């Protein structure tokens, strides 16, 4: 697929990516989303240089301080700088969200296309798998896995990925089902295209648009889930900062140091908003059915 993608790019006077970006920036919602998302990414990538303090260094002398010039968001009960922890927590959040969604999309697209294009029994089998996974509440499933292998970042990634696969798989399956009987697919078959070629060259680009939108909107859910699991003590282990563990710490100290819970919650809200804005703007730009309007 990678080869055909680069081939197609060389055709265009203006690349597909540049085209999308151009339209995204013109949309105020898209621009806001894009700015927030880039800020989050920049903060996560350059976290090591940005953080004012070591996020896991204890400083009992300065514990439970309010916001000040030294500690912009105050410190927690162990004297750790909250701002540094929030920035590092953002990195953890993306570390969970990106592989999770990447993995879920890859597996979801594969299973969805097989279900949509393959024989009926295979379709039923895959749908059965999707329904089985979906019938477990995510937290219950996470509890079971944590009980088996213990809490860790990998466990969180695995659990969220497993529970996200059906969402993508079902979208791809439905799209494939509607496309498989369309005339242009028949035309391709009459030109001698094999099943693999039809799926990779013709069906995949048709499902990727909606999928990109779905993924952008799914990132906040995944970040929220990671925070929730860490909050329950099933996610990342204590010294590692994550937005969920910051919330957890803040929750127990809400009467003394309310700013900790705010510091942990605001980035979560911002992430959700940023990716949702971006996702909605992306949908308007990428959706092939709206193409004629641009």
């Amino acid at each position, binding site marked *: 697929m990678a080869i055909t993608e680069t081939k*197609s790019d060389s*055709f*265009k006077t203006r690349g597909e990516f540049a085209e999308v970006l151009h339209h995204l920036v013109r949309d105020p919602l898209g621009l806001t989303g894009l700015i927030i998302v880039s800020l989050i990414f920049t903060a996560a990538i350059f976290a090591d240089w940005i953080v004012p303090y070591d996020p896991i260094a204890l400083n009992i002398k300065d514990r439970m301080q309010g916001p000040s010039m030294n500690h912009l968001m105050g410190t927690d009960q162990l004297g750790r700088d909250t701002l540094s922890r929030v920035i590092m927590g953002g990195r953890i959040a993306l570390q969970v969200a990106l592989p999770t969604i990447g993995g879920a999309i890859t597996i979801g697209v594969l299973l969805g296309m097989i279900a949509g294009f393959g024989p009926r029994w295979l379709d039923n089998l895959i749908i059965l798998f999707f329904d089985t996974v979906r019938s477990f509440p995510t937290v219950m499933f996470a509890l079971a896995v944590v009980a088996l292998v213990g809490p860790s970042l990998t466990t969180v990634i695995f659990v969220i990925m497993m529970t996200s696969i059906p969402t993508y798989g079902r979208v791809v399956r439905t799209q494939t089902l509607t496309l498989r009987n*369309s*005339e242009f697919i028949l035309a391709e078959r*009459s*030109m001698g295209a094999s099943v693999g070629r039809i799926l990779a*060259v013709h069906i995949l680009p048709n499902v990727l648009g909606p999928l990109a939108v779905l993924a952008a909107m799914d990132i906040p859910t995944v970040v929220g889930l990671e925070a929730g699991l860490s909050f329950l003590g099933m996610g990342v282990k204590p010294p590692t900062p994550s937005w969920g563990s910051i919330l957890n710490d803040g929750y127990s100290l809400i009467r003394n140091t309310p700013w900790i819970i705010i510091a942990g919650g605001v980035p979560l809200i911002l992430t959700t908003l940023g990716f949702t804005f971006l996702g909605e703007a992306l949908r308007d730009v990428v959706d092939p059915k709206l193409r004629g309007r641009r």
Partner: protein
Amino acid sequence: MTADILKITDLSIHYDTPRGALKALRHVNVSVPRGKIVGVVGESGCGKSTLISTIIRLLANNAKVASGSIVFDDQDLLALSETQMRGLRGTDISMVFQDPMQTHNPVLTIGRQMTDIQYRDKSTTAEKRNRAADMLALVGIPDPVQRLDQFPHEFSGGMRQRIAIAMALMARPKLLIADEPTTALDATLEVQIIKRLHELQAEIGCSILFISHHLGVIAELCEEVVVMYAGEVVEQGSVRDVFHSPSHPYTKALLDCDPGHIKEKTRSLPTIPGEIPDLVNLPAGCAFAPRCSQVFDACRSNRPAWNECKPGHHALCHLAETETVS
């Protein structure tokens, strides 16, 4: 090398339905000579689509080949493996479909699609792209190089059908199957497309199997015509013979119904009374007997034979038989 690029002999296709076997095609004989254009006419549901899906072997899952053979370029298509068959599609046999608005992938540029169908070729992308532009120019698309970067929705219906023809002819096939390629277009475009198709056929030297409802188009474009009714070929011959001295009553009725043939002012257009027989429970004799104006006793009990009216002109009718006798 035989004279016919495509020779269909005694082909019967049955569809499995809950009511029993639906006999969509029965003992069909069609031959397409090399370098000729053969038209197929018949009303909806007469088996035209089943016929072409059988030729390119893209039949629905519940379809079964009950009898017959399809010999294309000296090989039996029905005996080929799926891989061998796929090798023929798009290289030796190509197809143009009815609805130009739906025959292209909406999210890929025309250039991308036209280079993609040349995947069997080892040449570079630039060469393939050049060939695509040449083909577009050949079918009459202005500024072909610029237009390669556009999406299907940026073309009009007539242009999209030209592009579809360009794609089908890209590999210089020996046989082009055109499934009502002008039905979705208006009359002016129809004339243009037909003219272009004629020129291209002469240049490439391929044979065309042209399916249409439109008798005028068939008369203009084709050298031979096949008339189908209820899953059977009822008449085949040269356009001149079939249109000027039709032997089968169905062909006569069909010609009488063509608005172009009506000379006097009339309030209502003529129709053929009755409807197509149930293809699951067929009548014993001739399938057209219940609607035929010249029906007699033998028609209701005996299936007519494939009678030769004159060399190269056949009809599936008892009347043709008596004509040859007398």
